[in-house]
């Protein structure tokens, strides 16, 4: 990428290829971001767009297929699936983003401590191993029966199993970064620990953390659905994609639209977040970018 000597033809060729690569690399982000923006806007503006109250019962019009009055049909209580799907998106997204940020925050702190301080490394990582050894869904199920179900508990239940993953990643990145010469150089010029962590270690660990956060967000949206499926998710009166699908799973053969639409929204959203994560990784991680 440095201005090496090149003949005009190869230069032109390279430039052409680079711009093509640039575009195609951005394509992932562009598609991801577009899909995500649409879904987020739909969810955020749900009260403005949706024609029905997402929890209002209409028992006369149960299990109606999609029509002009109910675009996505109705469920077994006659509730409007379109309204529920959009409102559900708010809950699912809120859960996903909260879990991602929370696990990134806690995981980063733990990973940073474990990576920087030998005395903290073994105990912290053993606890992380312990948490990782319990399958995430089981842990979440355990959490859910422990207290009264609610959105905060779901977020915590999803966050806890993700924390070790973030912590491990951050630790491994920190282990590499702290051996970097520029960190030694910072020590040599008398940099104190807080500044060292904040200005030298953290900024250089940020790219993998950001990418990881998007993946955690995607997986959190999915796990919410799994918890709903297993009957230990967000309380049924609050629509979330997981809940709507879970409510409708009995009716797959009779009223496929109950699971089809929220399912499609859910899958598309997870896919969009993943694409965004991939795109950000490819763009920010020069090591990979150089190869692509």
């Amino acid at each position, binding site marked *: 990428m440095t201005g090496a000597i090149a003949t005009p033809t190869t230069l032109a060729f390279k430039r052409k290829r680079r711009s093509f*690569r640039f575009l*195609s690399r951005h394509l992932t982000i562009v598609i991801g971001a577009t899909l995500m923006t649409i879904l987020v806007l739909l969810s955020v503006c749900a009260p403005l767009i949706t024609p029905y109250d997402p929890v209002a019962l209409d028992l006369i019009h149960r299990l109606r297929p999609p029509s002009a009055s109910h675009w996505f049909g109705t469920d077994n209580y006659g509730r409007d699936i379109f309204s529920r799907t959009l409102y559900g998106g708010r809950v699912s997204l809120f859960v996903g983003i909260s879990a991602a940020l929370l696990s990134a925050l806690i995981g980063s702190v733990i990973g940073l401590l474990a990576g920087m301080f030998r005395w903290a490394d073994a105990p912290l990582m*053993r*606890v992380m*191993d*312990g948490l*990782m*050894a*319990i*399958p*995430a*869904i*089981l842990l979440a*199920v*355990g*959490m859910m*029966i*422990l207290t009264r179900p609610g959105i905060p508990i779901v977020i915590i239940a999803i966050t806890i*199993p993700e924390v070790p993953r973030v912590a491990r990643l951050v630790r491994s990145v920190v282990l590499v970064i702290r051996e970097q010469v520029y960190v030694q150089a910072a020590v040599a010029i008398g940099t104190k620990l807080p500044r060292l962590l904040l200005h030298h270690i953290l900024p250089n660990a940020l790219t993998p953390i950001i990418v990881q956060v998007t993946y955690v967000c*995607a997986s959190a949206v*999915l796990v919410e*659905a*799994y918890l709903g*499926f*297993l*009957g230990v998710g967000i309380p049924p009166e609050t629509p979330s994609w997981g809940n709507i*699908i879970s409510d409708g*799973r009995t009716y*797959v053969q009779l009223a496929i639209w109950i*699971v089809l639409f929220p*399912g499609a929204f*859910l*899958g*598309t959203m*997870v*896919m969009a977040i*993943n*694409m965004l994560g*991939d795109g950000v990784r490819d763009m920010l991680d020069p090591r*990979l970018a150089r*190869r*692509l």
Partner: protein
Amino acid sequence: MIQFVLRKLSSTAIVMGLVAVIVFLLIHLSPGDPAAIIAGDQATPAMIEQIRAGLGLDQPLIVQFWLWLVRLAHGDLGVSLFSHVPVGTLIMSRIQPTVSLAVATMLFAILTAIPLGVVAAWQVGRWVDRAVMALAIAAFSFPIFLIGYALVWGFALKLRILPVQGYTTLGNGIVPYLQHLVLPALSLGLVFMALLTRMTRSTMIEVLGEDYIRTARAKGLGQGAVLIKHGLKNAAVPLVTTIGNGIALLIGGVVVTESVFSIPGIGRLTIDAVTQRDFPVIQGIILVTSFTYVVVNLLVDLSYRLFDPRVRA
């Protein structure tokens, strides 16, 4: 090597101890009451109280924990509060379906992901690569149960070539055994296929950029031979890591898959036990699955040394 294994095992013991305590507290602090469930929907409080005393659930938590530990030290996981079947027996009777499903899933994932990943790496940036990557992203963006329902609808209800649900033991013949595994392994395996494909691809791209591969190519080795011989060998370490880390994900996925396909495995046993607060069973399962996770990751650690002697823990 022996030292390494011993050290790993001792830290494993610590992890297991932690897991045991977490599990015990988690379950016992939960508000559900197994006695109430055993008694049935129409039971009176007096009847529930009688049953609770009969099960020893009226004793203080510490006493219950101590008794559990003592029995555990004798290798006794206790008996189910409901069926009175020993937990060990219960788990053993459920292991075969789960292991079959897990192995089938992993085989499917590995056998499809490696070729896909290699091809994508070889064709990096071209349409083949794009198609593979799009497939990979889509495959782990949809919940397992939706994929499962779709597969059942297509292959079992419409085409009628595979069973809807259930599990048969190998004793009933290899063909029915495999037939019952295809759809579950497919729905669970897609996620892993996607993960492994991405991992294989990125590792292969990295490896292909290295000097010795260029040299090998320059020496005129056939392209396929270069890719497979040098590339895969070097890609083995990250792949094995992914598989090791995937075990926890796999166990989680198994719970959902077994529920969708009605496979009598560990996953369904777990959900049943949790929703009914069958404490001894839950404790037993979590210990066993955590143990499996730890052992698999120990094996993964050991296999690093096999694949790549340079790696030191």
